[in-house]
């Protein structure tokens, strides 16, 4: 006997909406990554070139987006700043996701005291917002790219540890794990052959979401002067500069803020779209 699948009115429309999110996210992210990559080869001006005579020029009067207090071309700063922010975010999230996933899988498979110890450690790490650990680390390492990457990566580790642990626990109850154990596979083999492929979708979705969060955090660190060191452009520091000239040159504050919001929205939409597409269960209580 086969159960008939009831047709649900409105499903098509929602399906369209889902693909819309995935598509919008992919286009936004793709475009900004393309701009970041382009900045490695070409920018309208040399972003660090100072032109005091052309300082604080409004958009279109000098370059597409105007110039800052030192006469630097804002569009060029924006392109390189985007590339810098993205590279820090990607490095931090990849680092955090790899470490966290490993910890989560080990905790779930070994269980007992090691599991409890690892997860309490994760709780402790999670208690430090990245801005706080970046402040502590910058006293230790000095502020810069490394400091920002480590601080954001550190905060990312517990997110993936919890996710990987919860998903691994669910998968370990499946029959094919029992079969694999019966076939004599050791824990490491099971983790690589069965656990990892089955949690990869959820990890990928979370990586996308965390990338958005990492961009947001990096911009905050840049604003406080705790991220990549000058003269290398950063979206956050552009906003810090803009604050000084807020009434004189409001355009300095607009472009970097909008760029940050677009990158983050792009990653969030992409993550939401991927989640629906890959049908990853979102379990807040896990």
């Amino acid at each position, binding site marked *: 006997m086969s159960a008939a699948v009831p047709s649900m009115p409105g499903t098509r429309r929602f399906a369209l909406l889902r693909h819309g999110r995935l598509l919008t996210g992919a286009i936004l992210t793709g475009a900004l990554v393309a701009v970041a990559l382009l900045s490695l080869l070409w920018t309208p001006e040399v972003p660090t070139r100072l032109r005091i005579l052309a300082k604080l020029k409004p958009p279109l009067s000098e370059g597409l987006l105007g110039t800052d207090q030192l006469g630097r071309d804002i569009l060029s700063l924006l392109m390189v700043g985007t590339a810098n922010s993205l590279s820090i975010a990607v490095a931090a999230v990849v680092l955090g996701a790899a470490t966290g996933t490993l910890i989560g899988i080990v905790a779930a498979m070994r269980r007992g005291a090691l599991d409890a110890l690892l997860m309490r450690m994760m709780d402790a790490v999670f208690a*430090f*917002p990245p801005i*706080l650990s970046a402040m502590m680390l910058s006293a230790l390492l000095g502020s810069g790219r490394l400091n920002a990457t480590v601080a954001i990566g550190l905060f990312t580790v517990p997110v993936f540890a919890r996710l990987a642990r919860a998903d691994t626990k669910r998968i370990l109850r499946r029959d094919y794990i029992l079969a694999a154990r019966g076939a004599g596979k050791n824990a490491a083999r099971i983790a690589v052959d069965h656990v990892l492929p089955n949690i990869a979708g959820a990890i990928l979705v979370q990586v996308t979401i965390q990338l*958005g969060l990492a961009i947001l955090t990096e911009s905050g660190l840049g*604003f406080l002067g705790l991220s990549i060191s000058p003269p290398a452009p950063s979206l956050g520091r552009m906003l810090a500069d803009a604050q000084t000239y807020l009434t004189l040159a409001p355009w300095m504050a607009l472009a970097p803020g909008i760029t940050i919001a677009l990158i983050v*929205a792009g990653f*969030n939409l992409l993550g939401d779209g991927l989640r629906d597409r890959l049908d990853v269960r979102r379990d807040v209580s896990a």
Partner: protein
Amino acid sequence: MLRPVLTRLLGLVLTLLAISAAVFLVMSVLPGDPAAIMLGTSARPDTLAALRSELGLDRPLPLRYAAWLTGLLTGDLGRSVTYGVPVAKLVLAGAAVTLPLAAMAILISLLLGLPLGVAAAARRGSAVDAGVSLFAQLGIATPNFWIGLLLILVFAATLGWMPSGGFPGWQAGAAPALTALLMPSIALALPQAAVLARVTRTATLEVLGEDFVRTARAKGLSRRQALWRHAVPNALLPVITIIGLQFTFLVAGAVLVENVFGLPGLGRLAMQALAQRDVTVMQVVVLLFATLAIVVNVLVDLAYLALDPRLRNAA
């Protein structure tokens, strides 16, 4: 009921101990000798040695940690290396700005996020729903310090309705102080409100599909009555979890927003201490922030136990 509560409290104590040790360790391996910072570069070696021994810097690390921890527990937070005043005094002054700021931000985000989320769920697929979704997407993606800059640009620099920053202090009266905190708390609240609206919408939609809501409707309650009496109270559970998780971001956000608006809160205190290598102040502020985040999360766990009887035996 008692066992899960005790388990969580024990976990809390252990986590706090681990965190305090971590903070102390990181801060004590920092380059720069607090005694040398206090005395300046022209200090004589024997004066330096005397101060080091007075501050206990010549003792081994575990002993110094134990002394610091005992001090914290007895209310002696140490003395600021740069200001020469008790750290407790600086922290209290900062908390008198940061805590009201955080409280106002939470209040605004609840007042904005909950109704928006419920409205979107009640009219799923409508223009209201689409509008709330757009607000949520934008709010989540926008840095709070940038919202702060825009608020200053519009309401202070252009319209002149609001002060662009600074804090008159509570002794100037509640009205000027609260006015000074209004724009910063809105900047801090908007991204949180966006997250809340989104979570409330999802949670309400889930509950609306449950049997007891259908039963309530079958009993003759109107859609509106079923929504407010049965669906919304039950949807609030996951929302509480999110508020707890958001608290960590709120604390971090306070550091940024205080810098934008020049508020003399804990975040600014921490940034200044960092710039001046004031280790005693840094240690306490960082530990305080982390402790707040952890305690709030345990409180959320406990609130969950109190609100959802099903969890009491499961844990």
